[in-house]
């Protein structure tokens, strides 16, 4: 009887935090709203139309790369190579398109060929990651860590550490131009995010992705093609990183071998803050959108409030740590 009471007490203790943490979407959305509102008095210009547009322009490429990462996290994996895919595809595209030294510099085919090269390279690296994990049975952490090192090195070697300038104006416009007041970047992001949302929530492949994340062995016994599904997740991540590279490179008008080198924490952090589980089987694109918005808001508000770089790093690190803690608590509650 005594033991039963103790157990009941423990369950009751867990019940309150569980109810508070069970809904990642409301937590992430609430955090964004609270942070935004609480920042208004201390952050001059935060609510100006220029700044709101600036916040959205800053979050779009990050949302794309975090979308790919979310798909991988749902399968229980991790893609540490996403930022090196961005760097490599940025210089590959630039090497094709640049008016100074590009293979097709000045040609009408430069932009489509450059973008195609970037997307194909992203997909191939994703496939390579997926194949190493599923066919060779290697852990995702070590596979993507080593491909991150390899492809970052390759990007630097290809360019001898130099940035590549003089990209076609039509390409740069993708990063910062607009069509009838709607930025191209927004159109590209919306298209990709909706496609990813449909993949996860409305397709059989989406259900397979979640099943692999929950329990790969059980999924395999149930007839899910686990190898194919995991490879698909890494290919999606590679393609998303390449699309993000298109936007970042266009915005900077420069192919850079160190593009996104310091972005990995933001990418994984945004997905985790949004509620994607580091243990797999949980995550939604809408949740990740809130995670990305929250990290972008932290950058923007602390920057406008004149806070130091070190403060920003500590706040972001703390928030991501709390999100990871929530993830652990959710898992314990399951």
């Amino acid at each position, binding site marked *: 009887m005594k033991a039963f009471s103790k157990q009941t007490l423990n369950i009751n203790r867990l019940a309150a935090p569980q109810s508070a943490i069970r809904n990642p979407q409301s937590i992430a959305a*609430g955090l964004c709203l609270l942070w935004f509102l609480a920042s*208004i008095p201390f952050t001059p210009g935060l609510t100006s139309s220029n700044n709101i547009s600036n916040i959205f322009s800053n979050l779009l490429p990050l949302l794309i790369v975090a979308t790919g990462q979310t798909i991988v996290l749902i399968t229980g994996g991790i893609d540490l190579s996403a930022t090196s895919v961005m760097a490599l595809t940025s210089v590959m595209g630039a090497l094709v398109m640049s008016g100074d030294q590009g293979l097709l510099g000045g040609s009408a085919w430069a932009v489509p060929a450059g973008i195609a090269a970037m997307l194909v390279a992203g997909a191939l690296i994703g496939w390579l990651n997926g194949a190493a994990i599923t066919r060779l049975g290697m852990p995702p952490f070590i596979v993507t860590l080593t491909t991150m090192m390899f492809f970052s090195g390759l990007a630097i070697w290809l360019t001898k550490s130099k940035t590549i*300038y003089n990209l076609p104006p039509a390409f740069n416009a993708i990063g910062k131009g607009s069509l009838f007041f709607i930025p191209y970047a927004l159109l590209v992001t919306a298209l990709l995010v909706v496609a990813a949302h449909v993949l996860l929530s409305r397709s059989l492949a989406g259900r397979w992705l979640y099943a692999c994340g929950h329990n790969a062995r059980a999924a395999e016994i149930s007839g899910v093609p686990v190898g194919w599904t995991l490879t698909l997740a890494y290919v999606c991540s590679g393609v998303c990183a390449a699309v993000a590279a298109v936007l970042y490179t266009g915005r900077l008008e420069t192919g850079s071998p*160190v593009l996104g080198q*310091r972005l990995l924490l933001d990418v994984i952090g945004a997905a985790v803050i949004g509620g994607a589980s580091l243990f797999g089987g949980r995550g939604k694109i809408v949740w990740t959108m809130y995670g990305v918005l929250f990290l972008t808001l932290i950058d923007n508000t602390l920057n406008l409030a*004149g806070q130091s770089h070190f403060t920003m790093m500590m706040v972001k690190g703390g928030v991501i740590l709390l999100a990871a803690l929530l993830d652990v608590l959710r898992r314990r509650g399951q």
Partner: protein
Amino acid sequence: MKRWIVLVLLLSLCLSLSCNQNSGLKQMTIGVSFETLQTEYWVAGFEAIKSELKKRDIAMLEAIADGDANRQLEQVNNFIARGVDGIIAVPKDAKTIIPMIKAANAANIPIVLYNRPADKTDAKSVAVVADNPGITKATVEYMCEQAKKSGKKYKALLLMGDLGDINAIGRRDGFEAAVKGYSDIIEVVARVPTEWNQEKALAGTTNALQAHPDINFIFTSSDFLFPSIISALKNAGKYKKIGEDGHVLMGGFDGDATAYQMLKDGYLDADGVQNVYFESEAAVQAVLDLKAGKTVTDVIRDPGFVIHQGNLNEMSAKMWGAQVKK
């Protein structure tokens, strides 16, 4: 949850109303964006700008891009959205800064580049830069004169920076121009491309000393590489004071605290010093002049100076590394 949101909303409205009431006393604000604060030189520059702005009662918004050009672009866009009166930026590189200059131009906000100029562009900015070739040439010429006085032959090692950085190119050119006049006594046997990376500097110096154990003349394009050089020299048993047998003639560029200490301890022969105080004052003044509609030259040069064993006491007051050390 709903009660929380309503509470925060009400609180925010009250606070923002009180802030708006004070907004009539708008203080001039300048956004300062540094690519990195990883070396002493950048920290000293950042602090010098901060104190210069404080002296003039100008508010400062700071942003450090942590080596990421995209982050720097976002931070500069944040400054523009905030409606700052001017921007001082240390670019990640000469090319990626161009879209940021264009954005500042479009918003009619003056932008001044500190220590690194932009590549050729139609976009309008002012750059405050050290006379890299001139200061390096003067420093290396002093070293060459010392070499000549000794009556010995010298094998030289040059540590270059990132050759995508115009400052690194200027320093390399200054070195080459100086040693050209002393080709009878100085032979350059190794040129190490460090890409402003201490690990590469250590590996490159170690390799060069193994391939050419008789190297006795070293110039580094930045003082922050001295710890790597000292480590390699110690491993080779060649780290000796001036006047000791086997001393390697050494020179550097920047004027940091390590170089000052090496000069004081008698290990370093000469150092080209960038005048951080001149550069920060010139950068702030340029923003104010541009804001006032005055014409400012596209490039403001810091003439710098050479500090060496002969003028150490006299010039150390002007050397920023000596002030940091205090």
